[in-house]
């Protein structure tokens, strides 16, 4: 029951405060001292986080409504269609909001340290606040269109932040790529909305989903079409096959951005959307199947690529893609709660991993290549410790967070009604092993073994400033803590603080979803029950705890294998990996080059499109036909003109000749002319 309560007006502050922060920093931030910029940015994210916490408490209270709605002015209002500025908060929203504001706030804090020396400090925080604004709009939206606002808006923020170092061509390119690839997804989202308007006459979630709910006979057909188009949108935003290509490139952005946007929050919007629309998806098994297959395929595929990457952030990027694949898989088998659970845990540990990686990079003055790391364990112990927590979490080692969430997904996949459910489970399982492998590979290569890095004593190359092109040398910063640090060093506490908090969350985060089979209460599942009530049928009580435990053991086994292989390859016998790679050079190169997907896209789509535009459209059609016809008409007229003027020879006799001929013609017309051709 939607209930509009004045008590919840503070909901508006959740998006509006970050927006205010954006406006302040975006317009006058350049003139403000850094302290003020920081204060604005942090306050504008802290208050929403507090509000969310308060909401959480209120909604957990007994007798609290499952759904809160606030409606403001209409945004678009025409005869037959009205779209309001309306927010909905239910339990799903609450989880997402928690992630967004909580993790977002932590990353804001981290960024204060990480970006301390950047020229565009104010700009960075303005963009980050803008992102917070749009992300909360996305999450809070009560209608497809408002969700789309956030959807596009986070894309914009992502574009701006990826291109933060706009002087670097690769950064600008990556930003553009992200935006455009996302637009391909948006294309699907938009079409889905058009169809929804046509079929339902509204874009409000409540209206649309109620309409579906009260018509149980609706199955497939147009619903499948809508669902598939939505999936296209989700695929774009959540970086699934075939639109995942933008995410690895997005690592051009500052590391906190990668952590916040490209790991914890924005990229999960696709999963959130599918979960939000579960009523719709439940009616279209085909679409769900597509989601599951895409999820599984992406999860495996990205893991493959992740195994051989050398850039620390790219490994994490592919791992993100892979983990998102898990979430997709969960949604695809109808286990939305599991997907959201994994989303939650993933937000913690992936943010942690990125931030820790950022700390490593910070320590190495911008070095991202793992081949030039090693042995950092002792130099940056806190970072090492937090990173270890993250690695254990993502690898799925019990009782770290991802163990529970990933297992839930694998279990749900196994027991789902999907005809190829077992195969999907297998894929998930193998990927779990691979995840373990490449994460421990990262771990070993970075923190163990010999030191491959060079010490940078030069302050001018210090820190993240290295990201920027040589043109943007940071002015000597007056921060006394920073000036005397030389070489590889631990990050300041403003960065380590969030790391530690996230490390703790990565450890305990999974405990909220310990399934009953392992003695827990699956709190998160029950928490989400009001939202996924219709989908809860999947979680059949018939499933035995034994099976669940058995599957958990198998997956732990897979993780162990992954760990062991990584241990052998990268710690025990560091040459083995190279040797194996040498055995299959073609395969290795193929994988190392990310299966040449970017190149294939470029050759099959981008280049032909450009050539088509340049040669066929611009050259032939526009130059030839459109302009040519005008030119031809002009030339014809000119030709006729010279013909007419040829008569004007200037000679009286020839003029008389023309007169005589004209006279004869007039006589002829007059004497023999019939008026039939006129009337």
């Amino acid at each position, binding site marked *: 029951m939607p209930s509009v309560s004045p008590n919840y007006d503070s909901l508006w502050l959740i998006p509006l405060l970050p927006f205010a922060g954006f406006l302040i920093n975006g317009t006058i931030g350049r003139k403000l001292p850094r302290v003020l910029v920081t204060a604005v940015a942090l306050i504008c994210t802290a208050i929403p986080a507090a509000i969310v916490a308060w909401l959480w408490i209120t909604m957990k209270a007994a007798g609290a409504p499952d759904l809160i709605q606030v409606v403001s002015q209409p945004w678009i209002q025409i005869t037959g269609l009205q779209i309001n500025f309306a927010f909905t908060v239910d339990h799903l929203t609450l989880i997402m909001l928690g992630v967004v504001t909580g993790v977002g706030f932590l990353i804001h804090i981290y960024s204060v340290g990480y970006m301390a020396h950047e020229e565009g400090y104010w700009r960075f925080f303005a963009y980050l606040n803008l992102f917070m604004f749009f992300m909360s709009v996305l999450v809070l939206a009560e209608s497809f269109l408002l969700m789309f*606002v956030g959807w596009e808006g986070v894309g914009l923020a992502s574009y701006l932040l990826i291109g933060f170092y706009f002087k670097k061509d690769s950064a*600008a390119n990556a930003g553009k790529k992200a935006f455009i690839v996302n637009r391909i997804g948006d*294309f699907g989202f938009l079409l889905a909305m058009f169809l929804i308007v046509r079929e339902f006459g509204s874009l409000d979630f409540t209206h649309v989903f109620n309409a579906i709910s009260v018509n149980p006979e609706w199955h497939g057909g147009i619903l499948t079409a809508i669902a598939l188009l939505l999936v296209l949108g989700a695929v774009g935003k959540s970086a699934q096959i075939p639109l995942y290509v933008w995410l690895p490139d997005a690592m051009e952005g500052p590391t906190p951005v990668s952590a916040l946007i490209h790991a914890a929050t924005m990229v999960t919007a696709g999963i959130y959307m599918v979960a939000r629309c579960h009523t719709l998806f439940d009616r279209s098994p085909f679409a769900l199947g597509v989601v599951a297959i895409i999820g599984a395929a992406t999860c495996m595929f990205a893991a493959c690529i992740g195994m051989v990457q050398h850039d620390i952030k790219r490994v994490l990027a592919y791992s993100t893609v892979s983990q998102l694949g898990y979430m997709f898989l969960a949604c695809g088998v109808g286990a939305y709660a599991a997907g959201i659970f994994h989303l939650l845990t993933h937000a913690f540990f992936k943010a942690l991993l990125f931030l820790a990686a950022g700390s490593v990079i910070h320590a190495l003055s911008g070095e991202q290549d793992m081949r030039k790391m090693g042995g950092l364990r002792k130099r940056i112990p806190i970072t090492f410790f937090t990173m270890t927590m993250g690695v254990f979490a993502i690898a799925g080692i019990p009782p770290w967070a991802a163990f529970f969430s990933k297992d839930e997904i694998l279990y749900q996949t196994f027991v789902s009604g999907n005809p190829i459910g077992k195969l999907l489970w297998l894929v998930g399982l193998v990927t779990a092993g691979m995840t373990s492998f490449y994460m421990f590979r990262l771990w070993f290569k970075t923190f163990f073994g010999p030191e491959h890095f060079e010490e940078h004593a030069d302050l001018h190359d210090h820190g993240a400033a290295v990201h920027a092109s040589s043109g943007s040398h940071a002015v000597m910063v007056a921060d006394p803590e920073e000036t005397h640090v030389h070489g590889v060093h631990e990050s300041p506490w403003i960065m380590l603080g969030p790391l530690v908090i996230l490390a703790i969350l990565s450890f305990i985060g999974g405990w909220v979803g310990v399934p009953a089979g392992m003695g827990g209460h699956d709190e998160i599942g029950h928490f989400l029950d009001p939202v996924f009530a219709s989908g809860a049928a999947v979680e059949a009580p018939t499933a035995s705890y034994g099976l669940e435990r058995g599957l958990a053991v198998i997956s732990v086994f897979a993780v162990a294998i992954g760990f062991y292989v990584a241990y052998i390859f990268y710690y025990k016998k560091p040459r083995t990996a190279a040797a194996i790679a040498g055995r299959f050079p073609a395969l290795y190169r193929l994988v190392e080059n990310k299966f040449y997907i970017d190149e294939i896209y470029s050759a099959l789509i981008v280049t032909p499109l450009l050539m088509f535009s340049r040669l066929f459209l611009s050259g032939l059609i526009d130059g030839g036909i459109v302009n040519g016809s005008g030119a031809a008409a002009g030339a014809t007229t000119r030709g006729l003109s010279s013909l007419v003027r040829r008569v004007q020879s200037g000679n009286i006799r020839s003029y008389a000749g023309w007169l005589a001929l004209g006279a004869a013609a007039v006589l002829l017309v007059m004497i023999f002319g019939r008026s039939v051709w006129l009337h």
Partner: protein
Amino acid sequence: MNIDHTILTVITFVPLAGAVLLALLPDKGKLMQWGALTVTLITFALTLHLPFHYDYSAVSGAFQFEQNAEWITSPAIHYHLGVDGLSMWLVVLTGFLAPLGVLISWNTISDRKKLFYTLFLLQQVAMLGIFVSLDLFLYYAFWELSLVPMTLLIATFGRTVNRRRAAIKYFLYTFIPSAILLVGMLWIYARTGTFQLPELTQLAATHGISNNSAALWLASLAFLVAFAVKVPVFPLHGWLADAIAEAPTAAVMVLAGKLGLYSILRFSFSIFPDESHRIAPLMIALGAIGIVYGALIALVQKDLKQLAAYGTLGHVSVVILGIFTFTIAGLDGGIYATLNEGIGGGALFMLLGILYERYGTYDIRDYGGLAAKLPWMVTLFVITTLSVVGLPMLNGFVGEFLVLTGGMQSTITHHTRWTVLATTGVIFTASYMLWMVQRVFYGNLNDNTADVPAPDLDAREHLALWPMVALMLLMGVASPYWMRAIDAAGTILARELQQAQPVTTNSPLPVPTVPSLANVLAQNDLLPAVNFKTDRESKLNLIPAAADATKKESKLRNISTSWSAALHSAASKPNTEATK
């Protein structure tokens, strides 16, 4: 006296008075600029009277602020002005853009200022006149008039040596179809005896204009083609790129879109509902193709203005697609998108003009890395870009979304596939706009422009751009404020159009039957109309000289028969009365 009945006249002719004033003042110092700015600001202030006194509750769609006086008795031409939801905001927009146009030309136009600002104001007169005229003749007069200042602006203030050619191309492209439009209008007048739009709309609704479908079809094409060229609709856009490339910024801002689109909505739809139905599948297709076509060509342009020109083609195509869906969403969105085009496109051209003012080139390859040098510029540029690519919460999105929604809801043949094609436009539009932004502002400084000392936006430029940006945001967030008037008009239009029956429903793309001369002229319909109404007869008072007029009527008949035999088929014979 209530000003509501004269406000439109005042709005329309204040710029004219200003133009005359400027023509008489000496061209010294900044006098011209200040003069033009004052006049345009006054005009804008006057246009604001409309939204504040508009009766939004009137759902009948009646015209407001109407003024109707007989102008010429024969042919029956009225001075008939009025606005409804369709035109009201366009009037305001025209008033809004003019001061900005003056501001943006402040320094760029350094010589022949008097000519420039006079022409600029005349252009505004013509545009305002087009939007407020409800008499076909009056409308046509303004329509034709609008060509002249624009042509002269291009021809005399163009950027390169090609300016005259571009100007003449523009003029011919638009004038020749307008000439055919005049034929169509005259034909309508010959059939109905009125130029008044409300009367014609009523006649059209009751199929009272003509029962000759072939002739009506041709007349509707005459109307539509003239408007379509002006819009321009793909593939009639031959003039666009050249004209935009040459024209000074203030002129480019109002070059494409509004006039033609408004005219289609106002005249084609009202007078030819059935025929519009017939052509709609084709127009939808052209709209969708135009969106993608414009975007794809813009993708490969090397000249910033050409790029923006093709972008403009894409954006006006959106409107075409929208209005020809005949759905409320499509029509509302189309009208809204027309406003957006004026703002977004205008701002884009202003920004490009500012760049040109600084660096003297529109070649995209000469730019690069300007973001660091011109932070305000890049900020406003990106906002404009986002408005153009249709980012939600900015104005561009509302129109585009509604148009495409309408496309999906429509009942026109093949609407789904064209809507899908049109929706791909969101990808391509983003591609070329972002690529342009990247090439101009990101990366490293280009050698060609690195050494040019170029300050960031000055106060005047801020003053010109911020209103635009503010409107982009406002219109993106608070669209109902504008939409309530538009929606009333759109709803009525949609209802009328949906009631109209397509002449032929079986052929998806109507192929205009090319009638032979003999064929068409042989139609009875083109012969004198039976219902030709004119008061000419009444003007001739033939007073009987003697009293016994009736007695000799038979004789009169004999004479007039022999006479009329001589004057074959004269429709309007003098009313002779004869007496002995």
